């Protein structure tokens, strides 16, 4: 059983949904990020998404764009992303880590070399925004061959005709993008999410995580009532941005402030079905 399967099986046993958190790796600097990462499991993150910063994040809103640029300015690259993940794995061997980003940094690193290094670093899954099923031979199939899950996004524009194609090589879990748009902008109505999850569940046995537009513990709880996990990204990345000085350097309280927010979200998710 993979770490992702084990985690969702455990959540099922506990009768609750999970919390998936997203932070951009190296935002605002490698050391602060590593401390956030280390604190996430205890703060209540059930699955951890680690963003690979990219200069041109087409599917992201202003918050994650800014986080990417901060991380790049601080010198982050894919090699260091993997090194930080590897260090985390020496302390935590159960919390799944999913790398999320765009294809070019991985393509530039070299797909084969990347998969070897990612596996060695303890990476469990990949979300690569600009690799639709039409390009499964690029990274999706090679990743699954070495035992790394390829998690696909389904969106409000994914109709019943297209859904089987999206699901065909998806492993680990399915990520439902609740709104047509970029990250961190509008929120979907709870009713719409309920309908969408029910529809997806008819087509797949995979756990369904829902993201985009989830900002508060209350919103996370609402999603946790109907989905297998709630994903929070932009709101947490904005919390990082709030704890920066005028030169974009971390203020002393950054890590604890961010982890407090994760705690609150986790309490929302855990209490959702109580």
């Amino acid at each position, binding site marked *: 059983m993979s770490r992702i399967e084990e985690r969702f099986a455990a959540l099922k046993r506990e009768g609750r949904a999970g919390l998936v958190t997203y932070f951009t790796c190296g935002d605002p600097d490698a050391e602060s990020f590593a401390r956030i990462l280390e604190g996430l499991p205890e703060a209540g993150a059930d699955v951890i998404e680690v963003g690979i910063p990219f200069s041109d994040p087409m599917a992201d809103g202003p918050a994650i764009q800014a986080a990417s640029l901060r991380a790049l300015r601080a010198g982050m690259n894919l090699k260091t992303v993997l090194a930080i993940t590897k260090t985390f794995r020496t302390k935590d061997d159960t919390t799944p880590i999913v790398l999320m980003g765009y294809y070019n940094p991985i393509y*530039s690193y070299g797909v084969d070399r990347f998969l070897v290094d990612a596996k060695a670093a303890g990476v469990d899954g990949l979300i690569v925004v*600009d690799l639709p099923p039409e390009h499964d031979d690029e990274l999706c199939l090679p990743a699954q061959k070495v035992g790394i899950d390829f998690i696909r996004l389904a969106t409000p524009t*994914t109709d019943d005709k297209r859904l089987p194609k999206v699901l065909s090589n998806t492993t680990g879990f399915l990520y439902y*993008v609740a709104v047509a748009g970029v990250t961190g902008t509008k929120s979907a109505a709870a009713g719409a999410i309920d309908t969408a999850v029910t529809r997806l569940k008819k087509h797949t046995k995979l756990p369904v995580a829902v993201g985009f537009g989830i900002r508060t513990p209350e919103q996370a709880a609402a999603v946790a009532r109907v989905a297998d996990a709630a994903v929070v990204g932009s709101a947490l990345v904005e919390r990082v941005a709030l704890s920066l000085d005028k030169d974009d350097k971390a203020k002393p309280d950054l890590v604890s402030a961010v982890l407090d927010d994760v705690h609150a979200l986790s309490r929302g998710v855990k209490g959702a079905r109580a």
Partner: protein
Amino acid sequence: MSSPNTYRSGPNERGLFGLFGGRFVAETLMPLILQVEEAYDAAKRDPSFAKDMAYYFEHYVGRPSPLYFAQRTTEEFGGAKVYLKREDLNHTGAHKINNTIGQILLARRMGKRRIIAETGAGQHGVATATVCALFNIPCVVYMGATDIERQKPNVFRMRLLGAEVRSVHSGTATLKDAMNDALRDWVANVEDTYYLIGTVAGPHPYPAMVRDFQNVIGDETKKQMQKAEGRLPDTLVAAIGGGSNAMGLFHPFLDDPSVKMIGVEAAGHGISTGKHAASLNGGLPGVLHGNRTYLLQTPDGQIIDAHSISAGLDYPGIGPEHAWLFDSKRVDYVAITDDEALEAFHLLTRLEGIIPALESAHALAHVKKIAPHLPKDHLIVANLSGRGDKDINTVAALQGIQL
């Protein structure tokens, strides 16, 4: 690499020209991209679509554009005969309108009620705003804040035409960021919006579709040269940013082995300085904006800003079909610096009474390099892709003159 039977059959059903092209977009956009492809395939089979195109090309754009024998330029260089394909004489002053006419007709067939576009120098933005005025469709143009500052006349033209110009401050605030923001808009407005891409790049089917609309340049040139000289030209030269004017001139000649083709990239301050826009001569294959192609990027795969005196060439990528023609060696790709382009700009203005766009001046600068060494019966066609009126502020500023 062995040479194929034809260079004109691409892309394949996955949108690939060899390694390049494809559909590297977020899932939200996939159904739309497939919809555009389906609609374009249907339009190609419908004779009324071609008839509509022909009507607007003749009566609105002013086609065919002349193939002009540049006698004084030919005498000055003292070698090959130089012809200019006068795309600068099209309505709005550049080749860009060929594509926007085609795509607006497609968008209408698809029942789309809102158009978005990206622009760098503003030429594509103006050509898009123009056809949106003509067909009364709301138009939003994304333009980098940096470009808005250096291309004020075109910003004003777009606004006169009724377009909303949205200033892009993300990233480095240039053309690539304008394209990012246009894609972000499209993801959020999938129901009613059509994205009118300005060059032979982006996800499939855009590179092939824009090429098809621009092929009128090469098709006309072939006929016109036949009439003027009774044969095919020997060398074609065109400037390349994204590569649409070059692709339009080259593509109809790709299977004529006697015709040599040269694409001219912008070398900016020189390729060795790192301040350039030569994606083929100074970049590496990568994936951006929906396609795999040559890109200016760091060893970590982060996109680097392009630099050129010509805002229209200032893009860190290039159309995927050019990337394939580069690797297959059917087309030669060279680079011309800002200074060389500027010199050619002045030369053509004085010799022929034609002020060329700084983009087109790159092609002319390369003609200046090769023409003197070629025999007098060698026929060169340079694509004069646009007129230079939009560049007079840039040129004046370099001479210390405030207009």
